[in-house]
Structure formats: structure tokens, C-alpha cells
């Protein structure tokens, strides 16, 4: 499609304003106005409606703000709650800057993108100046010159009043649509060939884009992605704990700790498995879990000690520490009973030494039971000992009482017998 137009060139902005007003008053369609800078009031003079781009801008901004609010809520409170400085997961003040930035970015870039699309601007587009000098000091008004209704001379006279520098009649082509890349023009600007070549090229390009997209995003195996967006997040640059190393001694990344390294929370124990060392431990070490000044012990450590005892000690020592665990019934030598003899006289530190380094048939338990738990187990062992001792005492008393009673009844009997004998 081609159009016949009239191009009016002006020297100053007042003239183009009056030219535009004339055109509107006479009902002549204004195609466009070209000015070196934004002329105030030209939009009104041309009768332009308010741009709908503002709504595009608003829609972009609002949707970006809403999306970003939801996205931050979802990431930091729903999908992967992160504790940052003890703040609530859903912390609106912290979202505000990101919402704001995303809103401004989307509104700005989106509006520009839509503007380019609407105006058919694209990188590399060759622009044709309607009049030389509209980027410098000239103003140009392009109106449709409809010769059917109004004669050329008549229209020309209409515009003469607004004082144009030049009035020129031209025939212009409609812009080819954006997909018609292969349009060829002859030298005088006429379209010589509006081939299908460009359209085919665009289709092929779209197919290529789709294929590349499919290749990038559809994974071949569930464990791997075709496209690693953040490589350093997919593959750690640091070597694994037990991987080969060319620089480190031993050819492996895992190294012995430096001599005298102390594990966190575990001050070293300067003891060995000897008798003297056990005695020293008895003198020097104290159970950190003691009853407080009022003689009250917190239930937690004791319960934990009981649990440890049930897991590790019961098999040999028996449920009450009587030395009658299951293994003793299969021929394992019986350990001494807690309630009797020498075990009562041992200090907590000595018990700890036994648990840590072993004694006689008892193997060391330092590997299985953490240090704290050993102390807690000792706490429970002490309780068992008290019960066992109390039981033993009670049993002894009972036996004694029974013995006394026996003696008495014996006396009575003898007395009775004597009485019987008396009469």
C-alpha cells in the first residue's frame, strides 16, 4: 500500500503548531510530526489521544511488584525458610527494596520494549529522515493528501497560511510488517519484490530457537541438567574430603589433624590405662552433673544415663547392676555386683577411668559413649548402687529380724515347753 502525502517543513515550533491546528480544523489526517525536540502542546494541536503506554507501564510495574512480593514470600518463608538475624520468615520491610527495584526495572524495560514494538523500532533499523534537518532545526508535518476530496492546490493554499518553508508532495510506502525481512526495494524506493524468502527465514529461525530451547531445558537424564546456569553452584570448586590431591602430602585431600589438636568441647585427658593413672583420675576428676546445693538433681542427665546404661551396660552388668547380665548366662565371666564390695568405694573419677580405658574383662567405651554420656551413666550407676546397698541392708535387717524372731519363738517354745512341762 502506498499513500500520497504532503510534507510541510517549518522553521519554528509556533508554525508547526498552527499547521497542525489548520490540518485538524480542516479534517485532514495528520500522519506524524517530526521535531528536533519535544514541542509543548503539539500533542493537543495534533489531537493525539493520551498514550496507552502509561497503562502498559502501570501493568508491568504492578505485576512485577505483586510477583516479587509472592516470590520472596515463597522463597524465604514457604519453600526454604531462612533465619536471617532472628527475623520472622515473612518480613515485609526486608522485601520492600527488592519489590521496589523489580517494579522499577520491569516498568522501565517493559515500557521501552513495548514502545519499540509499537513503533517498529529495532536494533539495526535503517531510518529514513522525512526531511533533512529535523534532527537539527527543522520541523516537519506529514499529512495525508487525499486528492479525491480536495485538490492539490487547495490543500497547498491551506497550509501556505501557516508559513511553511517548503511544501512537498510525496508517495510513501507502508512499513513492511516485522516478519517480512526479505523485502527488496528498487532504487527509487518502490517495493520491487515482497518475496516469501524473508517469511521462510523467520520460520526457520523460529524452529531453530525452539530446538535450541528444547535442547537446553528438556533434560536427558533426571540427574543432570543440559544447561548449568550457575556452574559454581552445581559443581563445587573445592575438592571433596577424600579425593586425590597432587599437592597435599599422602596424595589425598584428607589430612591428619595438626599435633596437639584439641577437639571442640573436649579438653584432653592426661591419663592412660594404668592403675596409677586410674587412681589419679579418681582424685582429680569430678562428675560435672552433680546435685545442686539443696541436694536436688535435675532429672535430664539421670534419664540419659539410664538410657546409656540400658544400651551399653545391661548386657554384662544386668538391669540392676547385679552382675547378672545375659552374657553371663552363656559363660562370660560375671562382673562384680554394684551393691557389694569394692565398687562402692571407687570415686566417680575412677569409674570414669574404667569406662574410658576399660578394666579387666571390660573393654574401653570411649569410642561408643561420648564423654558427657559417660558421666551421666556414672550418675545412674551411683543410683543403682544406692538402691543395691539399701536393698542389701534391708535384706540383712530382715534376715537379722527373722533370726531374732526365730530366736524368740525358740525361747517361747522352750518356755512353753517348760510351761507344759511345769504343770
Amino acid at each position: 500500500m502506498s499513500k500520497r502525502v504532503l510534507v510541510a517543513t517549518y522553521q519554528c515550533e509556533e508554525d508547526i503548531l498552527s499547521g497542525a491546528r489548520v490540518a485538524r480544523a480542516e479534517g485532514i489526517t495528520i500522519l506524524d510530526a517530526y521535531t528536533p525536540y519535544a514541542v509543548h502542546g503539539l500533542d493537543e494541536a495534533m489531537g493525539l489521544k493520551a498514550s496507552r503506554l502509561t497503562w502498559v507501564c502501570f501493568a508491568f510495574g504492578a505485576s512485577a511488584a505483586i510477583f516479587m512480593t509472592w516470590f520472596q514470600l515463597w522463597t524465604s518463608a514457604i519453600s526454604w525458610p531462612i533465619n536471617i538475624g532472628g527475623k520472622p520468615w515473612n518480613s515485609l520491610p526486608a522485601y520492600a527494596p527488592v519489590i521496589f527495584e523489580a517494579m522499577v526495572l520491569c516498568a522501565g524495560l517493559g515500557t521501552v520494549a513495548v514502545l519499540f514494538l509499537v513503533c517498529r523500532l529495532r536494533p539495526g533499523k535503517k531510518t529514513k529522515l522525512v526531511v533533512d534537518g529535523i534532527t537539527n532545526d527543522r520541523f516537519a508535518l506529514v499529512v495525508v493528501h487525499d486528492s479525491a476530496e480536495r485538490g492539490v492546490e487547495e490543500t497547498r493554499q491551506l497550509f501556505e497560511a501557516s508559513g511553511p518553508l517548503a511544501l512537498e508532495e510525496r508517495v510513501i510506502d507502508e512499513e513492511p510488517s516485522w516478519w517480512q525481512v526479505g523485502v527488496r526495494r528498487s532504487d527509487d524506493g518502490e517495493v520491487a519484490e515482497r518475496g516469501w524468502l524473508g517469511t521462510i527465514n523467520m520460520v526457520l529461525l523460529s524452529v531453530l530457537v525452539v530446538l535450541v530451547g528444547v535442547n537446553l531445558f528438556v533434560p536427558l537424564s533426571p540427574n543432570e541438567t543440559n544447561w548449568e546456569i550457575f556452574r559454581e553452584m552445581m559443581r563445587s570448586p573445592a575438592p571433596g574430603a577424600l579425593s586425590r590431591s597432587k599437592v597435599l602430602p599422602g596424595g589425598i585431600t584428607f589430612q591428619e589433624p595438626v599435633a596437639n589438636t584439641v577437639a571442640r568441647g573436649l579438653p584432653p585427658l592426661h591419663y592412660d590405662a594404668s592403675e596409677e593413672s586410674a587412681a589419679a583420675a579418681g582424685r582429680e576428676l569430678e562428675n560435672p552433673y552433680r546435685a545442686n546445693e539443696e541436694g536436688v538433681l535435675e532429672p535430664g542427665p539421670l534419664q540419659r544415663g539410664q538410657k546409656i546404661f540400658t544400651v551399653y551396660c545391661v548386657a554384662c552388668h544386668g538391669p540392676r547392676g547385679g552382675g547378672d547380665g545375659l552374657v553371663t548366662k552363656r559363660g562370660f565371666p560375671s562382673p562384680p555386683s554394684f551393691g557389694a564390695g569394692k565398687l562402692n568405694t571407687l570415686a566417680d573419677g575412677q569409674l570414669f577411668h574404667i569406662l574410658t580405658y576399660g578394666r579387666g574383662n571390660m573393654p574401653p567405651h570411649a569410642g561408643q559413649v561420648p564423654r558427657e554420656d559417660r558421666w551421666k551413666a556414672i550418675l545412674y550407676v551411683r543410683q543403682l548402687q544406692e538402691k543395691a546397698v539399701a536393698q542389701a541392708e534391708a535384706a540383712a535387717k530382715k534376715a537379722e529380724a527373722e533370726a531374732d524372731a526365730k530366736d524368740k519363738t525358740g525361747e517361747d517354745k522352750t518356755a512353753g515347753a517348760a510351761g507344759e512341762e511345769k504343770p
Partner: protein
Amino acid sequence: MTVIAADVTAPQRISRLLTILSGAGGVAFLLGLLITPNLVWPNLLLMCFYMFGLGLGATLFLALTRLMGAQWCRAIQIVPESMAKTIPLVAPLLGVVVIMGAIQRPLAESAVLHGESFWFKSAWLSTGFFAGRTVFYLVVFSLLSLGLASCSRRSRETTSPLFGRLSALFMVVFAIVFSAASVDWIQALDPDWFSTMWGVYQFSGVFVTGLATITLLAILLEQAGPLQGILTKKHLHTLGILLFSFSSFWMYIWLCQYMLIWYANISEETFYFFDRSHGLWGPLFIANLFLNWLIPFLVLLPRPAKQSASVLWKVAVVILVGRWLDLYIAIIPARDAGFPLFGFCEVGGILGTIGLFGLLMLHVLRKDSILA
């Protein structure tokens, strides 16, 4: 609008109305003295600082537009000029109120109470130094605003480099002196609290209310006569853009201050916001954001709204109410008010502010024979 227009077109009537308002404010204050005496002083401070801020915002507008080389504001220049001329009239009132408060309840003592490490603060807030500083601030602002107003007036007839130089000087002086003044007058009511955003926060409030008052008065004067045929849609559009952008600027600064304190979570800082966002203060705290930003932002977003006088004057009123609430939330809780109480003092303060500022404006406008 038509009601206001009808009133404005008869300056004698509006003058009587303003006198009645001032009188009502005075009576309410007397009642407040009897019923809630501890709220009288904070409301007086609020009222004076508010009025002072209107003048300052206008002076800032004069200096800023001059430095930008803006020509559009020539049409409405009489409005900021007249507002700037109220500063020397409000200054003595503000000075008396501030210094009276400092004497009655020395700030330095409450600063000392809470720890020995605040020796600098207690020295800075000692009553004599405080009063001296206050007088200095007020004198500086009075002189500069008078100078700028008269320069601006003369610039319509002759061009002189003095206006530009004075504007540049005012910008520098304003940045420093106003930061210090707002910290002294308002922030120091909580001597333990501190915010490095306070100066710019108060500046944003002062400027947006200055713009709102300029817009409102320009529309009123257009109805009343002096600006008839001068104030066009384009001026309104520019004023609307400025209102819109500086309302958003206020919100931006408000969030900067709030978010930093909220994030750092240091108890010396957070108590300020804690006191002001809990209990009955909570709804006011939220309403502050609505009045000062959300409503103006949403209303002024479309272009036609920025060009419409009937929309603009309503938005200006919303912003002015928002500013009052903003200062109310800042000042009242610092003076032992456990909950917001809208009593005689508040009503008196608002009526008195409208009446007194209106009378001052009327006085200035009549003196310059802009109004009959």
C-alpha cells in the same frame, strides 16, 4: 471546592472565619490546660514546628527553582514568596515554645540519667547551649527566607546575581542547620534515641508539605482572583508531579529509617518504633503511611489527576493531614502519652494552626497588596 471558592472570593469573610478558628483554637487550648495540661506543650510545639515547616518548604522551593533555572514557577511565585515571609513571624513563637520546654524539662538531665557515656550529649543538650542554638537557627532562617523572598520578588523586574547566590547559600545552610534544628527540636525529645536519617526525614516532610501548601494556596488564589488566568493546567501538572514525587520521596526516606532500625534490631534504637507501633498507636502508625504516601501515590498516578485542580487540592489536604499525623506520632509519645488522645489540645492545635497560618498569609498577602 465551590464552597471554599465562594469564601475566598470575599477576603473579609475568610479573614473573619480564620479569626474565629484561631479563637476556637485558643479556647480549646485553655480547656486543654485545665483538663490535660501535660499535652499542651507538645501540641504547641507540633503547631509551631508545623507552621515553621510550611514556610521553610516554600523558601526551599524558591531556592531550588532558582538554582534549577525553572521558569514555569514564575506564574505562582507570589505563593511561595508570601509563605516564606511568614517565617520571621512564626519564628518567635517557635523559639519561645522550644526554649520554654527546655527550661521546664531540661533535656540534658534525661540524657545523663541513662548512662555516663553520654557526656557529649548532655553537654550538647544543656539548656543554655540549646536555647542559644535555637535562637541562632531561627535568626538564620528568618534572615535567609526574608532575603530570598525579596530577591525573588525583585527578580521579576530586574535580573540580579544575588538571588542565585543567596539560593545556593540557602541550600548549604539549610542542609546543615535544618538537620541540627530538627534533631534538637523533635528528636531530642527522646534524648536516648538517635537516627542518622532524622534530618533528611524531616526535610522530606517539610518539603512535601511546602509543596502541598503551595498547590493549595495557588488553587485558592486562582479562585480568589490574583492568579486567575495565570495558573494553567501546565502549572498544576508540574505541581502535581512534584507532589507525587516528593510524597514518594517521603515514603522512601521513611522506609530507609524504619528498615535500618528494624534490621539492626538494637534496643536503643528500636524502642522508638516499638512505642509508636504498638497498642492504640498501631492504627495511626499505618494511617501515617496511607495519608502521606499511598493515597497521594495512587490518586496522582494517572496524568489527568495531576492536571486537575479539584483532585490536587484534595490530595494536598490529605498530605497536610498526613504531615500533622507524622509529627503527632513523633512528638506525643516522647512526652509520656501512653495512648493517642484526641482531646482539646489536639483540636485546638489543628484549628489554631489553620487559623493562625491563614491569618499570617492573609496579612502578608494584604501587605504586598496581592489581596484587597
